[in-house]
């Protein structure tokens, strides 16, 4: 176990100019064989490893990572955490994740800064209003703490919102999850990495998978740039790169990789205390503890592995947000970036077994991965350890695409006679 972090350890280390801090995680060489290997040291992969070790006592395991841990979408998202989805299966996994976030800092002894500052989802058309009312009923009966709020309440929670009732998309109300919010994305990866490492998990960075070995229909190991690793359980958690890895095993996937962009403004003193999502105009915004406005946009419509998106996709979002929050017109964009997201046919994730024995996959989180990290890792670890889907993971199996059992969170487009 690691020495604990606390204000006292901080003070103690300060005496010696912080020269005695231990490493947060080791930098081990791969062993020849593990009981299980997770491919991909993003939030989902690291959480999976952590829960495999903690909940299932599988400590002879490794996480292999092509680059640096937490370097993919875990460190590129807009850090929103919420669980107010429409479908039962989605509510179950996102709420598991959200509730794990509540205590994650304490559990990992690493401050992931989960901040339940509230998520406000604006209703800007009658159709959207109705859709959220339905979601609100479903969420209430599922036991989620969520409610519809009035335009006046929206204005109170988000004073900078454009409340002109004659604007293009007037605020008709909002769907509000008070216990949704944000977290510190890097810290989630680092916290899980430190936690897993403390339980004996080898996190092997700069180790790219270049082949998957099979014996008949069963996996037997991995070829990596740092040698061959024997294992009979492989969990692939590589988001936008999942098709590349699965192609090595001959497992075709219902995935397309696209670029999702985000940006931050220069830091300013607090102007917005919660997360606001404006789905009609495709923009969402929050303010980080550092003071930057964190803004997310849409995906490019074509496959893109370049981590660089096209400007119009963001321009569209900014234009909408200038209209929704007029004061940002005179603020400035500091930095923009892209992540490679794995989009499935129904835009819901895939968690579970594959056609190949010992090969498990957790992917397809698309634009919603960060919020689900703890829940995803929790159920995926259980799935790998027991070689059967965890009940919460079961609806998300690959088999749903052949059965037509889709999990569609996008309520039909706004149409009316």
């Amino acid at each position, binding site marked *: 176990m690691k020495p604990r*972090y*606390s204000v006292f350890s901080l003070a103690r280390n*300060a005496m010696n*100019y*912080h020269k005695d*801090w231990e*490493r*947060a995680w080791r930098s081990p060489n791969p062993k020849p064989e593990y009981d299980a290997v997770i491919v991909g040291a993003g939030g989902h992969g690291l959480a999976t490893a952590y829960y495999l070790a903690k909940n299932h006592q599988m400590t002879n395991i490794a996480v292999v990572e092509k680059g640096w841990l937490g*370097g993919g979408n875990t460190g590129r998202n807009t850090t929103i955490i919420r669980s107010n989805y429409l479908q039962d299966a989605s509510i179950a996994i996102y709420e598991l994740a959200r509730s794990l976030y509540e205590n994650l800092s*304490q559990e990992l002894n*690493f*401050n992931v*800064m989960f*901040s339940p500052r509230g998520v406000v989802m604006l209703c800007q058309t*009658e*159709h959207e209003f*109705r859709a959220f*009312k*339905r*979601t609100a*009923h*479903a969420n*209430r*009966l*599922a*036991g989620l703490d969520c409610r519809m709020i009035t335009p006046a309440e929206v204005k109170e929670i988000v004073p*900078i919102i454009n409340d002109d009732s004659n604007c293009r*998309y007037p605020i008709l109300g909002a769907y509000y999850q008070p216990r949704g919010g944000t977290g*510190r994305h*890097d810290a989630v990866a*680092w916290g899980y990495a430190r936690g897993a490492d403390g339980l004996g998990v080898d996190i092997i960075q700069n180790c790219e998978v270049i082949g998957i070995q099979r014996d008949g229909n069963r996996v037997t190991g991995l070829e990596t740039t740092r040698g061959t690793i024997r294992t009979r359980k492989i969990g692939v958690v590589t988001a936008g790169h999942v098709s590349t890895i699965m192609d090595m095993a001959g497992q075709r996937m219902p995935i397309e990789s696209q670029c999702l962009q985000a940006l931050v403004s*220069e*830091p*300013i*003193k607090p102007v917005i205390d919660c997360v606001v999502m404006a789905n009609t105009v495709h923009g969402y915004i929050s303010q980080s*503890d550092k003071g930057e406005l964190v803004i997310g946009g849409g995906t490019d419509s074509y496959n893109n592995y*370049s981590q*660089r998106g*096209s*400007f119009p996709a*963001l321009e569209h979002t*900014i*234009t909408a947000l*200038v209209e929704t929050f007029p*004061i940002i*017109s*005179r603020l400035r*964009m500091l*930095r*923009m*970036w892209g992540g490679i997201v794995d989009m499935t046919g129904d835009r819901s994730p895939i968690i579970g077994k594959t056609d190949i024995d010992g090969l498990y996959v957790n992917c397809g989180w698309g634009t919603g991965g960060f919020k689900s990290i703890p829940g995803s890792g929790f159920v995926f670890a259980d799935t790998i350890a027991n070689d059967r889907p965890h009940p919460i993971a079961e609806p998300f199996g690959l088999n749903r695409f052949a059965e*037509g059992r*889709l999990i*569609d969170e*996008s*309520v*039909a487009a*706004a*149409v009316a*006679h």
Partner: protein
Amino acid sequence: MSNKPYRLAHGGSRIDRARKVSFTFDGKHLTGFAGDTVAAAVMATGQRVLGRSFKYHRPRGVVGLGSEEMNALVGVGDGARHEPNLRATQVELYDGLTAVSQNRWPSLDFDVSAINNKFSRLFPSGFYYKTFMWPKRFWKHVYEPFIRRAAGLGKAPVGRDPDTYEQIHVHCDVLVVGAGVAGLAAAEAATAAGARVIIADENPLFGGLADIAGGTIDGRPQTEWVKEKTQALAEAENVHVLSRTTVVGHWHHNHLMLFERVADHDPALLAAGTPRHRLWKVRAAYVILASGAIERPIAFANNDRPGVMLASAARAMVERYGVAPGAQGVVFTNNDDAYLTALTLHMAGVGIRVVDSRARAEGELPNAARAAGIDIATSSIISAVHTSLGGLGIGDVKVAAYRRGQGRVISERKVECDFIAMSGGWNPALHLWCHNGGKIRFDDALQAFRPDRHADAIAAVGAANGTFELSNMLAEAHAAGEKAAGKPSGRVAPIAEQPKQKRLEALWFAPATGKYNEGNKHFIDFQNDVTAADLELAQREGYESVEHTKRYTTFGMATDQGKTSNINGLGVLAEATGKTIPEIGVTTFRPPYTPFSFGAIAGTLTKKLFLPIRRTAVYQWHVDRGAVVEPVGQWRRAYTYPRTAEDKHAAINREILCVRNKVGLLDASTLGKIEIKGPDAAEFLDRMYTNTFSTLKVGRCRYGLMLNELGFLTDDGVTVRLADDHFLMHTTSGGADRIAAWLEEWLQTEWPHYRVFVTPVTEQWSQFAIAGPRAREVLAKLAPDFELSNEALPHMTFREGRLGPYPVRVYRISFSGELSYEVATPANLGRGLWDEIVEAGREFGLEPYGTEALHVLRAEKGYIVVGDETDGTTTPYDVGLDGLVSKKKADFLGKRSLQQPHLKSTDRKQLVGLLTEDPNEVLPDGAYAVKEVKDKPPMEMIGQVTSTYMSPTLGRSIAMALIQNGRARMGETLSFPLEGKVVRAKIVEPVFYDKEGAKLNV
């Protein structure tokens, strides 16, 4: 040293001493000269501190020359025109300018948060990941609110931005980024070769550092050469010359954004209606990157004290603004270039000495300095800085002997001074090179990264390419200009003379007094307060990847995005880990180069132009009539028409009853209309719809269902056979464009052999529904000879003809369940026909009705709305429209998917009607029924309300719902737990009015 004005008696190439300009800084009224920046004008008054750092709130002065400035950030302007976080080194002074410092309270000179600095030992990098966890709820309620208040820099403006922005799209042959001498030489060559050129520079004046670099070009001083070339480019017809314009980003296929600050420097321009900013979207066949280089600070102990500047900035202060950085200074360098600063200051009468970390300083410039009598200490560094004025200025420094690689200071001596001009070498500004994936390599001679390979048509020249020698720079730029233009220019490259410089020696870390790296702060990222010790701590803790180090320490993440800190940080990391800088790696450069306004990104697409509203030909009539309008897709439609003193509910009820009992008029023009014509049109429609259209007779109408390939309902509407080979398809209002594109896609990509044209005609027609028992009488009055009898024009038929002067298509179709005619006329005649119908209908009690009445009417009749009764996962079977799904056709879109196991399973949600036990209770929209009511959630949900209304026709509430296995549950009573109560409702058939359809066939 005293706090006295530093404006020199002479000099200042940029300022006009005859024109005084008054402005305020933190409320104090100050005076500067036309041509000053805020930084220069404030410094001229003797004020050293212009800002406070992010974390420790340490007092900070101006460090840089322009956009690389990280300390002196100010807010400019008042109220809705306030703009935070501007670099004082870039803000041009104008009369009446108001500037405020940031991130301090109560004042710049006395900031209570500076206490953070006293406890800084407790706050190393990443300290917040290790604490603030107990007790748990304190994070949200105590720690985080405190951190948020303390963080942030400037304040946001208040209210709606009164200024305007615009965008311009331009193609060019050659875009030259930066108008220093390299950029000018490249642009001159490209222009002379006949290329269409854009040259852009972020500064108000072209020339880059030419005015402070010395030397001559083509026998003239650099500044004269610059002036002449700038003038020539401005006069050339094939060149856009853009000053105050930053090329902020480079994207795929040579797409670049140029951010022009059109009016920030002159309120008179704004007042005259000039846009504040302009965003140039440039597609360049070729890009020449001549973005110059940025000077590096040196990491020495307390190198952030007010009065520590970059050597180039100190030099420019004197040359450009006639402002001395102090009275007595030290140039601290590892290269020859900074000797130019020493010479410049010396000539201006400022006391100066040089501390050079190199063992030998024997280039032309050091020799000139020596000859001028300037004291030069080689093999030396600054090992300590002592403050004066309570930390707001510098009192003296310690100079220590130094040998490369030395870890600690052995001997040192005190040197009095009040400012330091530092230079750790120069980094090529290769940010734009990297935005779209250009590769870079480390150059050992420069100790800096320089451009390497790039897949795009782009070349770097001059300092941006690591070419610092003036003649080479010009030759390289000239050649690049010709290459970019693809033709010779017919001119020769300019020839330059400049003192030769000797090599620099890397100096990533200057050791300090005392044990290595204890207690002293060697700042790497000034704004974010990241020190060399922080970087090393990150390494020790395992945050080894440079990206980890960056994120853990926040180095390079301030508003300057690491312009001055990036390479220094890598140097420190390299020395700490024994790796080379290339082994450490670099973090990714991302757009933008410098921050640019969201206003410019939105451009003119704000307020009314944000998203244009679509209006029908009759829109103004609805508004004049007092209609409440609602957005439907891009349209605005009349929701209801309340009369004076009538609330919306009463109005809707009145409109419904008017349709049921008399006659109503609806503007249905927004309904999607698509004409499908050609010999194979019928067969094509059979593929598109679940039901069959090839059997439809000419002149008849048929309601059709459309699925996507997943088997789910995506649109519906009535299609009319106008002729054997000619159909008119109606779609939902919101679906018109989508369905037209959908038809076209299948036609072109799957069945290209079909001879069919698909033509969207929604906007060509105005279409009105005249619905109600007296509808026929209204129409008959308008056109007595139009054959309207039930026999001549029965339900679901169509006739073309004239209503008086109006050519019309009359469809006898109904979405209300009443006798109904939809009359379509060309849109330009729409308003006239509408007025005539209103007039003709008067005696029959005709009234307009809106979309809400329409919805209640159709719900009473049990007609579905795609998007209400369906949600993207609903099949035709789910909504009970099995009869509309052909069993005979071998194929139609979505057919095979309907056979996937889950879609044909029997326990799917099915459409039913609901009658609440209490007829006055209206179920809420979207309410869920549960299998079993429990005291508290979770409860198992079995389906949801899709439409719910108080029906004035029936005098009770009605609802439709999708309920698991609903059709088998007819008569069952379901429970809908709401907040505080449970509503119970009986499952019935989802048709509440005129089940037999008698009203339709009259």
